[in-house]
């Protein structure tokens, strides 16, 4: 059957922050992207991006997201932590329905259930490699400290 896996509180909080930040970034990004004209070239797009305050907000949020994500990656395998952020797909769908008036169908709700089931499967599988071999330079550094 499914192995019981415990996820530490620090990792759970880090993942929750990652999901919330991801949702806010996506919605802000969409609002900012809507302000760019259709005829714009890639360079004009970049110029607009640098001038729009909303993109600066997105940039600041992305920096917060990066700092939090590095913390999460320090506590878990990438192949464990990254799929768990798929929950932000669920929150973005719900938030875009609420704040951007995008309609959600019954099939989308079914999709949300599948995503949640997938996340559950991954959390049952454990968060970290059973045996992690330290890189050679770390072993050398540890030995140097011991000496």
């Amino acid at each position, binding site marked *: 059957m*499914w*192995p019981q896996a415990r996820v530490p509180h620090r990792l759970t909080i880090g993942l929750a922050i990652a999901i919330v930040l991801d949702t806010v970034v*996506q*919605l802000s*990004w*969409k609002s900012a*992207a809507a302000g*760019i004209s*259709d005829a714009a070239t*890639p360079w004009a*797009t*970049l110029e607009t*991006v640098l001038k729009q305050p909303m993109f600066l907000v997105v940039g600041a949020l*992305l920096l917060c997201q*990066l700092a939090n*994500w*590095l913390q999460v*990656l*320090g506590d878990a*395998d*990438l*192949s*464990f932590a*990254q*799929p768990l952020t*798929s929950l*932000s*797909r669920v929150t*973005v*769908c719900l938030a*875009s329905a609420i704040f*951007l008036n*995008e309609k959600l*169908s*019954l*099939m*989308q709700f*079914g*999709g*949300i*259930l*599948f*995503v*949640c*089931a*997938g*996340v*559950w*499967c*991954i959390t*049952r*599988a*454990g968060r970290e*490699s*059973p045996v992690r071999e330290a*890189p050679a*330079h*770390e072993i050398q550094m540890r030995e140097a400290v011991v000496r």
Partner: protein
Amino acid sequence: MTPTAIGILLVMLAAAIEGFGQIFLKKSTLEQVRRPVWIAAGIAVFIVQAVVYTEALRLLTVSTAFALGTLSFVSVVLLSKWLLREPVTFNRWVGVGLIVIGSSLIVASA
């Protein structure tokens, strides 16, 4: 090619790019000596991904673009196994599969 098809291709490209960005960030937590280099490489890759994804968002709804971006989970897991040698268990593959199916359902009706 329709704008929607171009948007979908751009999101798929962004997903592939994101896979490498995530690998670089994970590397930064594994190799303390080269940490700044890996973080800088990760950020550089994410900037490229951001430009590609911004273009895609102009052509697709946020629900569609975000759900299609789920392909990045597959690329990240594959690259984690290949480049980081993480042991990807059967449960993880099942979980990623369910996530991709779920996101496809979300896209199909978006």
